[in-house]
């Protein structure tokens, strides 16, 4: 086994690797990340994950539920560190996997991947406790500066792939299923199908539990915002006549070979300084997260039930309303924005007519929240139109350099909002705590020396 594979094995066992090895790993990771653009292009199929916050055992549960690397492609939307007890092990494992399988693992930056935030919210303390010095923290922070700010997922299908995890009793995904929610064992909890006009129809009585009014009680899913049918086109007029995203419509969309429209992944949300995805590409990201400005906003903002922009109670970033998202998605030919950054008790929450979704992957957050976690699977479009390149550099990428950067931003595509890609959410709970060994030593904090 290579050193890297050894490190992966050790980290999977939740044991930190030696400082020298961390240094080497971070160096390699930086070389890799420096070649990536601010907005990484990723091809479906991909599994999108939200905040981890050092909940290592729950990250292992996530891999169990979502499939292991490299069998499953993953995109993690930041906030690997802080608050949890195993930020170090969690981040280093993800980084090892990134270096080992660069095409199968995408990591983007969260607001916690920052020197200042980690000194306040725990990761710094954790590194000092585990290594006795801040060196490892410094190596990790140097990597943080090179993480991409966002990702564009291309080639996501508007039909779901068969649910390979599902038990024999589970139903096959129906042809027109837009949203499917599964539990940790792959059993389908509910399905939402497409209807003309992009609205969803509830197929499954179980799914009624997903309605926001009932989610608090069963804690399974938060799909299908109740305002879903209040579409953009006014009076609920269907914007398309054909199958959503197929291009078979009466309007002028569907001009590019990207059946479902691209999905933008970013940790926080939008910025008043960014109206086009291309503007993200122009930022100089290789620095500490600033207190304000576009880079800060992408990592700190939150969607909210307001019009336009609002001040964020966080003291950084902004609140943005449905109108902002819809205009942005339209202008950038996006079908969906996937973001993390906010706890949702049901693991995921679609808002604003499914134009944006929050994915949260830290179950029972901070050991007390009682929330479930989720991951979002986008399946590969098999229509043959989805062969698209990555633009995040060609280094070590088997499919790198296929074609040129795609024009994902079709300014003149004036059709209504694109329908979202088919989405499978897998919802899971905190890992059992059975056999976690207690540390033998109790280090003494400075105050108590």
């Amino acid at each position, binding site marked *: 086994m290579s050193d890297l594979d050894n490190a992966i094995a050790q980290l999977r066992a939740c044991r930190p690797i030696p400082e020298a090895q961390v240094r080497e790993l971070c160096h390699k990771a930086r070389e890799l990340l420096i070649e990536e653009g601010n907005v990484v292009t990723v091809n479906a199929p991909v599994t999108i994950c939200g905040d981890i916050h050092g909940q290592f055992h729950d990250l292992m549960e996530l891999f169990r539920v979502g499939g292991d690397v490299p069998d499953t492609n993953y995109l993690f939307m930041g906030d690997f560190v802080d608050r949890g007890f195993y930020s170090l092990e969690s981040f280093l494992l993800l980084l090892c996997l990134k270096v080992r399988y660069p095409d199968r693992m995408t990591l983007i930056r969260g607001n916690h991947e920052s020197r200042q935030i980690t000194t306040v919210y725990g990761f710094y303390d954790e590194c000092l406790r585990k290594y006795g010095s*801040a060196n490892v923290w410094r190596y990790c922070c140097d990597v943080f500066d090179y993480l991409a700010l966002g990702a564009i997922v291309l080639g996501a299908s508007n039909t779901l792939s068969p649910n390979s995890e599902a038990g024999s009793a589970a139903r096959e995904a129906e042809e027109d299923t837009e949203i499917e929610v599964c539990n940790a064992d792959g059993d389908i909890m509910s399905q939402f199908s497409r209807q003309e006009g992009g609205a969803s129809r509830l197929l499954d009585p179980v799914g009624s539990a997903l309605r*926001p*009014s009932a989610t608090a009680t069963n804690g399974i899913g938060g799909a299908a915002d109740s305002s879903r049918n209040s579409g953009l086109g006014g009076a609920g007029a269907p914007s398309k006549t054909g199958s959503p995203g197929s291009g078979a419509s009466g309007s002028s969309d569907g001009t590019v070979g990207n059946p479902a429209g691209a999905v933008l992944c970013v940790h926080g949300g939008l910025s008043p300084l960014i109206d086009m995805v291309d503007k993200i590409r122009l930022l100089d990201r290789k620095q500490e997260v*600033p*207190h304000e*400005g576009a880079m800060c906003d992408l990592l700190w903002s939150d969607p909210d039930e307001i019009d*336009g922009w609002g001040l964020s109670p966080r003291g950084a970033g902004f609140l943005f309303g449905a109108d902002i998202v819809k205009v942005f998605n339209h202008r950038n030919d996006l079908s969906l924005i996937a973001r993390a950054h906010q706890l949702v008790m049901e693991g995921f929450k679609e808002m604003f007519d499914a134009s944006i979704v929050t994915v949260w992957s830290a179950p029972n957050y*901070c050991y007390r929240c009682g929330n479930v976690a989720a991951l979002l699977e986008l399946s590969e479009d098999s229509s043959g139109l989805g062969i698209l390149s990555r633009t995040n550099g060609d280094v070590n990428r088997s499919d790198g350099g296929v074609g040129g950067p795609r024009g994902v931003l079709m300014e003149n595509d004036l059709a209504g909002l694109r329908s979202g890609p088919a989405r499978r959410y897998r919802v899971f709970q905190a890992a059992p*705590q059975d056999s976690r060994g207690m540390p033998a030593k109790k280090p003494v904090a400075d*105050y108590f020396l």
Partner: protein
Amino acid sequence: MEPPKTSPATATTSAAPPPPTFPKLEILDPSTPHRFLRPVKRINEGPDVARFLTSQAYRDIGIFVLQLNRSLCPRKPPHPLDASCRPPGISKALYGVTTFPTNSYLHGSAVPEPVVKLQRMLDTIEAIIDEAPPDPGPRRFGNASFRTWHRLLEERVDALLRQFLPAHVLEFGQTDRDEIPGDQDEGTETEESEAGPLDELRAYFLGGFGSAQRLDYGTGHELSFVAFLGCLWKLGYFKEMFSAADRPLDETERCIVLGVIEPYLKVVRRLILTYTLEPAGSHGVWGLDDHFFMPYIFGSAQLTRPITETEPMPVEGSLPYAPPPSTVATAAKADSHRAENMYFSAIGFINDVKTGPFWEHSPILFDISGIKDGWGKINKGMIKMYNAEVLSKFPVVQHFPFGSLFAWDADPNAAVPTTSVHMANQPIASAAAAAAPMGTSAPWAQATRMPGAAAGNTTTTPGIPYSQAPWAGGRSSAGPALPRGGAPGPVLVSDPSQMTPATFSRGTPGTASHQFAVTKAPWAKD
């Protein structure tokens, strides 16, 4: 452990105590005119914290907390006891020692009237929960019905304070108002400038029950309630509680902690559970506790080595037969001490709300449970930690308002504050290890200088490093350059026509403003 509460030997012993040699918060003379001020926020920027650390308010908070702390330390018998008189069942080590378990101060005829009044007031406040039941509907985390609860409290606070507090407090110094020098000249000022005791009491009292806007509760709120009690102390509310003749020394302070603060914590815990209040600025597992600090100070004091009335607070050692600190790490064992000790009461609450291994979800408390030098050591560390992690942190103290009782004015005797280190990105291991020799008020004064000149000392001792507040240098020092690709400066709205009154609302129910453990920018000012 079951230490005897008060062994018979000391119950009747009331030898003339020596004059107290430990600082106590001043009790104002009601015959001297006093000018009250409506408390206002003064800490607006990171550097203001350094100014706060030299203020009279900071000094008074320190004196008051240390005074309360010392009162809980078990007491040795005032004079040697005849061992032959030791009753059966009382161990030699505890013979004549007086301890102060929590539950002995909550009820009963021994509880003095002023404390009973405050307990009744807390009961009344707690009962408001029944009028504002938690909203059963969908929500993210914090329950918006807490806003209803808080609004009802705000509406009733004046009536409550008037109902439960005596006239000599509410009208303190008011009769002689005209005689305040200079007051005549300012007689033409608007009514807003006329402040009374109620204005100061109200500000700290309301500040003690969480944030309605953010649906959170943290150590800043806890501090505010302690300041409320400090105001009452200064106004002489507690001074008549015991007649001088039969008053055990420091009994008043013990009544305040065990008879008022502990019941207050119980009310707050119920609020947290009822409305799922977010820990203000949670550090996750890397904070001492999600919400509280006081019970760890006072609870460790309850279990320290006994002292005489003239000895300073011990810095090591435990009460004989006290549960060892390691008890904390085992939920079942810890639970058995909840009723009698504030530290274990706090641990019990953590175990109520958190799942998972204790050492994982509360590693700092777990580490502290390994301390070998006893509860005295823990108590000393808690006080240093409180000073550094609560009183010296901008996000916590920025909300603390200043009036006449907790004054922003400089304390002429304050230690020269070391200039805060403007290290936005390089946390500095605390210099606490470089301990100075201790005087009577040493832990506090020493801790004051913690982020001090030795800050460059990069100690590599294992343990929890408590980093310098990165925002202490203020925004300018911490903010790297704006991204070159974006427009410079904060542009709030891309299209001014989109600006509506609602545009800048601070969030609506179900938004980021009341999420559990939502990350706030350390430089956020709200």
